[in-house]
């Protein structure tokens, strides 16, 4: 009989780090699957499949990178891979990435975050920064333009106000209580936000699933509730106080907690034990700091969301926070408690001061969604390209562009009022657009005249506007007004005669507060990427007033010749009939700008 020696204790719990990581993996896959399914339903199966492909690409890249690294370091590849948990990093990275990020950007970010974010520090357990957050920071800072334009157009450009975070930003990060219902209605209310019915990052969609995962991980004791709960509570309380100060309600605080990456970050990133403090007092300070930074970054920085960078910034402080909780937790409990309370109080005070004096409400005009105040005859349906043909007896067959396709309806008009509205062809997104064509919605058109005000169907604003456009056109046709005018042939060589189809220009109304000035938000392909601009047009005169480039994604040093101030000044007063020369040496970028100007003018003209 052999008597082995092992230092005591010789009794261990069955819990293993690998099991914790497997639980985490299962949860991450659940979130991924939910996002893929909801993307498939809302934007079509191709987008859903893309989410899964992105995750697969990132995981394969991560594992391959680690394998190569271990091979070079002459380590046991199989064993090291098993205990390095690179796939968890890759999955989290994918889930905090936007769906339109190119595979190339994702692969580079994965490689960098695995090597520079983790392996060079000594591998799993040794890294300073949350590797996934590190990878996403690389994508955000270096690959902003490396996007699949078709996916961007399909998912993100459909929202008039952008993602909830971007929309909130346009309000100056504060919304008075009275305006909040209209605002949140754009995203289908809190219930829709909770179910993930709006585009965000891939994993940011399904709040319910994330919360369920959080509950599961807490139950399995895989994550620690001190950090997550403190973070959520502090975030909620501080945004509530600041909100109340500015006249906002509880909903504002709820928006801070439900919106953006907060829930995903809380469940999957802040709970990463490797990069957060060890002791509970340390974790509480970390959570308070994260909450404060999240809010300050949201309020004052030009980042889309503050969660990611708040985690990265606090990661840097982890060793210092750990040292704050030096000592014996029993003997020094009062000292440690006072340190926690003191540090938290200072952090929260600073945050509240920033909140009180650093933010100011703005009032952007939200177009084509939510409550409507414009009479049907005055609404701008230029983008819908509506056509109506009279069939006699007040019956009109109408066609109008919706979100994806052209919808058709048979509308019966009697005495200047609609008496029948039947949708004969529906070509928008099933499950979304058809909310507007539901029977209950269509009955709203009964008795509608040109002076009526019809609200858009929330959550289906594009389809709804195609229906309203057809209603307006039918009523106008019945009143003897012209509805569809074929564009007059533009003079040779003029802006209107140029062919910009390669640039795929696209414009939506941004604001129209200063009628007849309309501001159009336009996108058009340049040389390398998609450029964006705000084009202000005098609608009555069909003239460009100003063009402002908001996003420039072409070659620096070449394309930007076309966006120089002097060049942009040339667009002032431009009409479709006028001729404008390309900027020499930057013809591609210039074409994209001209395409946007033309598109805005066309839209203003109702073409």
């Amino acid at each position, binding site marked *: 009989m*052999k*008597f082995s020696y092992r230092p005591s204790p010789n*009794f261990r719990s069955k*819990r293993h*780090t690998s099991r*914790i990581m497997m639980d985490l993996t299962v949860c991450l896959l659940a979130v991924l699957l939910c996002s893929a399914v909801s993307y498939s339903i809302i934007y079509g199966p191709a987008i859903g499949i893309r989410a899964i492909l992105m995750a697969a690409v990132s995981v394969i890249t991560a594992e391959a990178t680690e394998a190569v690294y271990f091979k070079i370091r002459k380590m046991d590849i199989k064993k090291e891979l098993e205990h390095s948990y690179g796939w968890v990093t890759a999955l989290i990275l994918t889930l905090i990435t936007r769906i339109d990020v190119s595979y190339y950007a994702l692969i580079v970010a994965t490689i960098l975050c695995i090597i520079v974010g983790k392996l060079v520090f000594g591998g799993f357990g040794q890294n300073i920064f949350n590797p996934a957050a590190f990878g996403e920071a690389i994508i955000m800072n270096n690959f902003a333009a490396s996007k699949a334009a078709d996916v961007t157009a399909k998912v993100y450009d459909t929202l008039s106000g952008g993602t909830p975070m971007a929309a909130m930003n346009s309000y100056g990060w504060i919304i008075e209580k009275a305006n909040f219902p209209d605002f949140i209605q754009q995203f289908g209310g809190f219930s829709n936000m909770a179910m993930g019915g709006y585009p965000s990052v891939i994993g940011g969609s399904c709040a319910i699933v994330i919360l369920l995962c959080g509950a599961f991980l807490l139950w399995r004791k895989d994550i620690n509730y001190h950090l997550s709960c403190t973070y959520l509570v502090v975030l909620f309380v501080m945004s509530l106080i600041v909100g109340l100060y500015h006249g906002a309600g509880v909903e504002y605080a709820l928006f801070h907690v439900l919106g953006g990456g907060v829930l995903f970050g809380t469940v999957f990133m802040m709970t990463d034990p490797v990069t957060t403090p060890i002791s*509970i007092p340390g974790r509480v300070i970390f959570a308070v700091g994260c909450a404060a930074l999240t809010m300050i970054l949201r309020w004052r920085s030009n980042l889309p969301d503050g969660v990611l960078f708040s985690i990265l910034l606090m990661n840097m402080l982890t060793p210092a926070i750990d040292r704050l909780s030096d000592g*014996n*937790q*029993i003997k020094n409990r009062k000292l440690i408690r006072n340190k926690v309370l003191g540090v938290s109080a200072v952090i929260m005070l600073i945050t509240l001061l920033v909140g009180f004096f650093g933010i100011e409400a703005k009032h952007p005009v939200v177009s084509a969604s939510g409550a409507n105040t414009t009479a049907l005859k005055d609404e701008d349906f230029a983008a819908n390209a509506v056509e109506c043909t009279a069939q006699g007896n007040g019956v009109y067959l109408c066609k109008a562009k919706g979100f994806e396709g052209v919808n058709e309806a048979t509308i019966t008009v009697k005495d200047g009022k609609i008496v029948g509205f039947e949708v004969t062809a529906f070509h928008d997104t099933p499950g979304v657009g058809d909310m507007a064509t539901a029977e209950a919605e269509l009955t709203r058109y009964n008795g509608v005249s040109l002076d009526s005000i019809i609200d858009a169907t929330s959550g289906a604003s594009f389809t709804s506007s195609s229906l309203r456009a057809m209603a307006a056109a039918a009523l106008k046709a019945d009143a003897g007004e012209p509805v569809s005018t074929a564009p007059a042939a533009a003079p040779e060589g003029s802006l209107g005669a140029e062919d910009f189809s390669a640039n795929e220009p696209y414009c939506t109304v941004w604001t129209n507060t200063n009628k007849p000035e309309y501001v159009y938000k336009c996108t058009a392909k340049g040389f390398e990427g998609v450029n964006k601009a705000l084009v202000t047009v005098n609608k009555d005169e069909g003239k460009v007033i100003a063009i402002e480039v908001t996003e420039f994604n072409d070659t620096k040093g070449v394309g930007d010749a076309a966006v120089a101030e002097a060049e942009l000044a040339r667009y002032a007063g431009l009409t479709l009939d006028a001729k404008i020369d390309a900027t020499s040496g930057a013809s591609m970028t210039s074409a994209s700008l001209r395409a946007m100007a033309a598109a805005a003018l066309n839209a203003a003209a109702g073409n």
Partner: protein
Amino acid sequence: MSFLTGPMNHHLEGHKEITKHADVLKTIDPDVVWIPLVNGNAPCKPLVEIGDEVKVGTKIAERNDHFYLPLFSPVSGTVTGIEKFMTSGMAQADHLRIQNDHKHTEVRAFPAFDAEKASWEELLEFVKNAGMLGLGGAGFPTYVKYLKPENVELFIVNAVECEPYLTADYKNIEENIDLLKTGTLALYKLSKAKKGCVAIKEDKKEQIKALKETFAGTPIEIRTVPDLYPMGWERTLVFQLTGRRYDKLPIEAGCILNNASTAIALGNAIDNGHPITHKYLTVSGEAIRNPQNVYVPVGTKAHEIIDACGGYIDGIEDVLLIAGGPMMGRTIPNDQFVIAPQNNGLTVLPTEDKDEVKCLRCGRCTETCPSGLQPVRIQMSAAIFDEAELNKLYVMDCIECGMCTYVCPSKIDVTENVRRAKNFIRARMASRAKEAKK
């Protein structure tokens, strides 16, 4: 502020049902016993010569430095020598070899004593001369705790037995509940405490009922504590029962504690005039054929007890033989050591490979450490020999309860690393003391 500290305890799988209901094996009567001539770190001086005849209850040795402790012979027979070998505490010590004549001739070690009528001073003297020592594991002479019982609020008999696998106290109480009553009341009197209690884990339902019946009409309460580890440790138990923490000794929190088997031993001395000669010992674990409790003379060799329990399970070639339970007991790399009075178990486990991975800083050890330490940070500071940081982390407060290793999901020997850190600090302090002398 429990929100900032974590539970500082943890429920462990007890594995107590293995031996809890089996009968106690009392037939072990070795031909030779070896009495360890050591108490704590102090040697005990033999009072008999080689060749002397001894009887059960003959005083054979005593510790006589700043504490006094007599040792008594557990068998009748002849003293045949003194041998030096390793104790169950992994230290080399002299052992008095006594050849057993299997006649069990007894000598009354001390006359009958009436604890109720005796004065406090007489009772203290009796406890001292009866050789009572902490049978829970420490082996500390009992009378020392009661020398100056001032402002004692609560006297506690510790029947918690939180160490996994061990049921020796349970079986001892089951068989000697009347002696427990005598001993407890005597110690309660000695403690001059305002209140007294027997603390027992809430899951031992039958025993709680029996204890309540036995102690009905006495000032001793039966208090149940949750099934958590290390509930049997003095500090955890005092905190559980009184909500108080203390710095060095439980008396600072107004408490005096003794183990239940110590109280039973005292009851045995008072009622029957028997000193501590035998021990209830749990022999358990996954590698022993017949796990059960045994009642053996002090000084019996481990391998004789293992053999009496059917030996090792066939097919197991590599075992961990642990003196005590698996949490705090030491692994002994041979089976030649003998049972000392403070031993209460032998746990035999098959040696298994462990799947150690890197620390992920999950902080479980910090949350469950009953001493309020941060084992993972101690481990990291020890790796770079950062003496100042180790002191800031109160490394010397560690009691080596084993919790940090138990909870570690990465299967790291955290307790052992902390132990090394303590040894490093001790060595530094010793070398500085040496420097100072020069």
